[in-house]
């Protein structure tokens, strides 16, 4: 168990290193001198300015040394200075992370609660309910978030005026974005729940439980849902991790000032220090969440505790 966790964490670190290397190395993949790339579309490139960039990125050192420096700086919280905002990247992030986290958390609550409930309902009720849930969720996964966002804004924001449009901070502000973000996820979770429960329900041990006279409610909760928990939790974790990236679209569509909009802005302004930092942050969060989910598996499935 402990060695398992240790190995997982080691794998996590290795993946993180590799991804950070990709993020860092990307600047070198760009055609031309990295310094011009890193300077972005900035006007009036003075020699001092270029020198400053060279210094910030230690461009005169060997590549690997540069990378390690950059990584060291990043680990200690020094993510450089934004080219667009003259501000420290770390400060920019710090100001925006709460919005993004709030959004993801809100969406996660929504999709877990409603996704599992809908999926369970479909699996248990079957028939029309099932068909309706399946059709609804198939549709929900098929409408791109930015279209959903546009629709929600125009309906609930503009036409009905129930929700504020733009701005941020309060839970109220985050509601429409969170719904948008949660919608696709909700569909996935409800399908996984439904699928897992249907599969569980067909297993012999459920029949055995039924044949022993247990009530249907007990069978659904104790056996079907319990057995389906593994895939459900795994998927919830993966989807939550994926939501981090989903915020890019949703925040842009709702004009929320979070990490996602920062990223889009940074790319459009060739603000590479910010791009790097946001990517690093999102990837780290993603890997952390997925690793956590994997580590949680043995808690759900005793079979995962022993063995490889």
């Amino acid at each position, binding site marked *: 168990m402990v060695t398992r966790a240790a190995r997982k964490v080691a794998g996590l670190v290795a993946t993180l290193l590799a991804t950070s290397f990709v993020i860092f190395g990307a600047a070198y993949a760009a055609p031309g001198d990295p310094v011009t790339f890193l300077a972005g579309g900035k006007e009036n490139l003075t020699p001092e300015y270029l020198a400053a960039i060279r210094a910030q990125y230690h461009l005169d050192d060997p590549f690997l040394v540069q990378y390690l420096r950059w990584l060291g700086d990043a680990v200690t919280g020094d993510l450089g200075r934004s080219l667009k905002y003259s501000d420290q990247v770390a400060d920019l992030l710090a100001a925006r992370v709460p919005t993004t986290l709030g959004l993801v958390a809100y969406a996660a609550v929504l999709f877990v609660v409603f996704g599992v409930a809908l999926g369970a309902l479909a699996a248990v009720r079957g028939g029309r309910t099932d068909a309706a849930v399946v059709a609804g969720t198939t549709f929900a996964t098929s*409408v791109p978030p930015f279209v959903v966002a546009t629709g929600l804004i125009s309906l609930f924001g503009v036409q009905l005026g129930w929700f504020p449009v733009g701005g941020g901070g309060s839970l109220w502000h985050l509601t429409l974005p969170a719904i948008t973000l949660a919608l696709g996820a909700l569909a*996935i979770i409800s399908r996984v729940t439904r699928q897992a429960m249907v599969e569980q329900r067909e297993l012999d041990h459920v029949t055995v439980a039924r044949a022993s006279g247990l009530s249907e409610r007990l069978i659904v909760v104790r056996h079907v849902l319990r057995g389906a928990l593994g895939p459900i939790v795994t998927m919830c974790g993966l989807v939550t991790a994926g939501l981090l990236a989903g915020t890019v679209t949703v925040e842009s569509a709702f004009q929320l000032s979070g990490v996602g909009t920062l990223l*889009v802005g940074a790319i459009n302004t060739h603000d590479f220090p910010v791009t790097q930092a946001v990517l690093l942050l999102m990837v780290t969060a993603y890997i952390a969440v997925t690793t956590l989910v994997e580590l949680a598996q043995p808690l759900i499935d005793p079979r995962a505790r022993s063995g490889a």
Partner: protein
Amino acid sequence: MTVVATLPSARRPLGFQLAAALLVLVVAGAVLAPVVAPYAPDAVDFAATLSPLSPEHLLGADQSGRDLLSRILYGARTSLIGPLALLAIASVLGVALGTLAAWWRGWVDAFVSRVTDVMYAFPGLLFVVLVVAVFGNGITTAVVALGLAYTPTIAKYTRAIAITECAKPYIDAYRVQGMSGLRICVRHLVPNMARSIVGYLVVLFGEGLMSLATLSFLGFGAQPPSSDWGLMVKEGQAAMVQGAFLPVLVPGAAIALVVVSFNVIGVRLADRLAARRP
């Protein structure tokens, strides 16, 4: 990430037929755009600015008075070829990598898995975003980058089914007959996985279409004056302020309908596959 959930086989195939019909219509529209589109996709007609549904403009017109129906028809080309190209890239690489990993196992598998893990660690569109950040915006960059981003997904999927498939004695039988590994993989293993992979690709197609549209919406993908659907939504947003919803609604609905159709078909294919497996 994608989940292919299977649905009860007792479902009426009506949805499936509708979806197939819609797709046929869209593909035909894309191919025949020059013939059937009432206007050129870029034809500006200021007299028709933000025209509502009308006989002249069946689906209305955008801010520049460009006919939305014509733009949708022409846009279907980019919007369909884009995902097709990216899936072509992703499936060639992914199937090769996945099969390789499943067949040779050992360090080859470990290596391939590590590489795909790193790619996987870039959630959603982030890898594409990185590539776009470095190589600049544009549909080609977006397609290639998305192709690479989808590679690990397909590789993982292929690896999983290849491992199940390799465990089946008929593969052993080929080996016992003296067939070379390469030949077994290329001639027998891959063809036998083809159904599953194609079913998966159908669902991925919808997703790819959506991803590309999202990129265009964010300004990273197709660039004006292309009539890519995602871009049309982006451009149409300005019209919403003026109370005109068609420029957003029409391309938004087009994306949603096509993706729904692919999902309906994909899910049904997955169903059929699941039913076939003993």
